[in-house]
């Protein structure tokens, strides 16, 4: 049975309108392709606006000794050498140009006394490297890219969600989706598709991520046969708000520590002295998150189960100028004046290092015609991402994905797909309404987030992960019985039901990869394998769909060439 749908056609379809998606679209347009951008929210609302700290780029405006080699080395070290070295190299080399480009398109960064772009210190970066706009760098980036794209003439399909990629043989040739507003279906025909859908934080209870972060792109790619990699590496940002309950998990930018903020426990101790005496509060995120978690577990936490973060030793005017949105966030939501007293903070699920495996040069996935850039893709960050390396990632690999996708579109035909694929996709969406009774998607989602939080969180062990997986299997059965109330007109319950499917796929990939890696490395900490194991340090875990089932395999981490090894070995 075929259900009505509209059709749109483009050379390049970009799914997601955050930093990576917009940058990809701009590049594809610049190469003469016709570009459609699909996003679940309104244009300009993507999660990138939440990025506060800055864009890491070795421009050497503040620390003249900085260069791409140092940035490359910091990134590889932060990622515990599981990174794709070539991605880390390209990223470090190209980031400064991508920042300059933003400035040429109208972005206004904070300035040095000489009138150049100001750079600030951040965890894991040897030099002052983060180009920033107070603590709202992500918003500046989104606005700049959005205006640029509008001016160049991309078609934006706002409040539209993609539920399935269309394939022709083994290549991707389009996507099926629905308009959130009306609930009608739409088919996009495209010669290449760029995934830029972000992460999966909404599968955890305490998270800094918005409702959009449901692992859509990873699940779409997985369903289309693409490989995922490094799925065990989920970043818990050390500093989320812990109080009041409604804002639990909301991000407290690392820029607070970059600007001199200090962590203390209930006893007033600077506990980071015990966990990383050298880098202290600006240690990498995995280390700081575990430190806070441990302090709380051992009874030295604050009243609401966090640590104190204090910037009030700095002049009030300085704090308000450098951290304006933090100042307002705490004043308005927590009744705390951060210029006068400490904040209470604790770890929050923040970022997915793992994702779709891509080629370093082109951002192409293992499925022809399918590209991935930004958080949805994996490789650059390895086992742990450094703060500031996400915004630069979006720009560098967003551009490369758009470039390669446009080039491919220039040399391939549109591809043909069989209508049955569309029927399947639309039938799945309507099934939620057709059941006479069943559970609310919100109930299943609540239980999933509890499970991921308690069993697949910061510290993991075999028993927890196995029971987590058993629960995920139960949630799958419950998902089959979800019933959605109401109509197809802007119905968030319906949208969540679909997003849940993606979350379940990705959650399973995370839990299974975490169970497989029997060591602790970067963001992955096993209490039953507390040490790093050099043999695991040479392997990435790849997840792929084989004959309808999820299969895991191990791949050797690609070795950097000798000249780069020399860079890595430098003190």
């Amino acid at each position: 049975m075929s259900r009505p749908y509209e059709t749109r056609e483009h050379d390049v379809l970009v799914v997601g309108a955050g930093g990576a998606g917009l940058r990809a679209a701009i590049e594809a347009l610049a190469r003469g392709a016709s570009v459609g951008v699909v996003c679940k929210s309104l244009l300009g609302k993507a999660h990138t606006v939440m990025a506060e700290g800055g864009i890491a780029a070795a421009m050497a405006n503040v620390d003249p000794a900085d260069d791409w080699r140092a940035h490359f080395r910091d990134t590889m070290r932060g990622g515990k050498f599981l990174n794709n070295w070539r991605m880390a190299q390209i990223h470090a080399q190209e980031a400064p140009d991508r920042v300059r480009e933003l400035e040429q398109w109208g972005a206004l960064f904070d300035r040095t006394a000489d009138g150049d772009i100001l750079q600030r210190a951040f965890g894991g970066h040897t030099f002052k490297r983060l180009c920033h706009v107070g603590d709202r760098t992500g918003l500046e980036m989104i606005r700049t890219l959005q205006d640029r794209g509008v001016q160049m003439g991309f078609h934006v399909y706002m409040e539209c969600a993609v539920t399935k990629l269309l394939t022709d043989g083994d290549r991707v040739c389009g996507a099926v989706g629905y308009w959130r507003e009306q609930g009608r279906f739409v088919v996009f025909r495209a010669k290449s598709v760029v995934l830029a859908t972000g992460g999966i934080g909404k599968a955890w209870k305490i998270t800094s991520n918005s409702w959009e972060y449901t692992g859509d792109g990873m699940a779409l790619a997985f369903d289309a046969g693409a490989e995922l990699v490094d799925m065990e590496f989920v970043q818990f940002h050390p500093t989320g708000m812990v109080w009041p309950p409604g804002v639990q998990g909301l991000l407290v930018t690392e820029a607070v520590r970059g600007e001199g903020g200090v962590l203390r426990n209930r006893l007033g101790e600077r506990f980071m002295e015990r966990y990383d005496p050298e880098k202290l509060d600006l240690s990498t995120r995995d280390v700081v998150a575990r430190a806070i978690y441990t302090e709380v577990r051992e009874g030295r936490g604050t009243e609401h189960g966090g640590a104190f973060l204090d910037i009030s030793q700095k002049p009030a005017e300085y704090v308000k100028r450098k951290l304006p949105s933090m100042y307002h966030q705490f004043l308005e939501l927590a009744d705390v004046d951060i210029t006068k007293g400490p904040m209470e903070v604790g770890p929050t699920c923040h970022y997915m290092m793992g994702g779709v495996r891509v080629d370093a040069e082109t951002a192409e996935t293992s499925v022809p015609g399918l590209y991935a850039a930004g958080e949805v893709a994996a490789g650059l960050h390895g086992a742990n991402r450094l703060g500031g390396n996400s915004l630069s990632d979006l720009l560098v690999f967003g551009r490369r994905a758009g470039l390669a996708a446009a080039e491919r579109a220039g040399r391939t035909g549109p591809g043909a797909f069989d209508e049955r694929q569309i029927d399947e996709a639309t039938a799945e969406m309507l099934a939620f309404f057709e059941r006479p009774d069943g559970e609310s998607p919100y109930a299943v989602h609540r239980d999933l987030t509890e499970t991921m939080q308690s069993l697949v969180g910061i510290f993991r062990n075999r028993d927890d992960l196995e029971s987590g997986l058993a629960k995920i299997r139960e949630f799958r059965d419950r998902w089959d019985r979800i019933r959605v109330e109401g109509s197809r007109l802007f119905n968030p319950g319906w949208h969540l039901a679909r997003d849940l499917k993606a979350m379940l796929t990705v959650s399973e990939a995370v839990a299974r990869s975490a169970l497989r890696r029997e060591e602790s490395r970067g963001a992955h900490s096993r209490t039953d394998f507390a040490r790093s194991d050099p043999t695991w340090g040479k392997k990435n875990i790849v997840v792929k769909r084989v004959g309808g089932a999820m299969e895991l395999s191990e791949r050797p981490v690609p070795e950097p060439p000798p000249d780069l090894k020399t860079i890595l070995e430098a003190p």
Partner: protein
Amino acid sequence: MKEAVLRVFRGTADGGELVEYRVPVAPGMVVLDALHHIQGYLAPDLAVRWNCKAGKCGSCSAEVNGRPRLTCKTRMDSLPADRPIVVTPMKAFPVLRDLVTDVSWNYEVNRKIPPFSPRAGTDWKMSQADVDRVQEFRKCIECFLCQNVCHVLRDHGKKREFGGPRFFVRVAALEMHPLDGLSRTKLLKEELGLGYCNITKCCTEVCPEDIHITDNAIIPLKERVIDDFYDPLAKLLRKVFGRKRT
């Protein structure tokens, strides 16, 4: 546990009604938390826009007890506890469903504005002082609350002739960009209808980013329009000496 009573608009462009919901109140709770509770337990199809829940994306705009607000920044304990909290969609835009309105008109206005156009031969040096005033405008999160409250749009429906405060802020950001070389005064006068604004300052009052829309954006823009169109001498001087960047 304490309870709050919310009366939320449920309906479409064809009409609707206020529906009452009872929601448990936790410390520090905001109106958006209450709406999420309703979705999660009472009405899974309640249509609400939101993203960041931190006042950074401008998605969750609505009217709370008749006042245009970001629901994610409106604390329940800031509202009178002795009567129901009434939540309705923004009035100046057509309702799609429940609290979600059609704001696409704003995106159309935005398209009319010529982009940043750097002056030829710039060395890309800027001082923080020059950047500061523009950064104020760049804080805009496009919540469209100022558009919603401006009487030219809200009461007189002049969407065809008037761009609205949000876009005056955007034009101000471009006009006052230290390196921009374009003039947008003709656009302001002829297409964005700056003249309709009679400086009531309602927009400034509702801006969640505390942008001084009227004093810092609109009034200086009005001065530029006057200079360019009604003061030929000032215009001539500027042509000779360059714009005085006040």
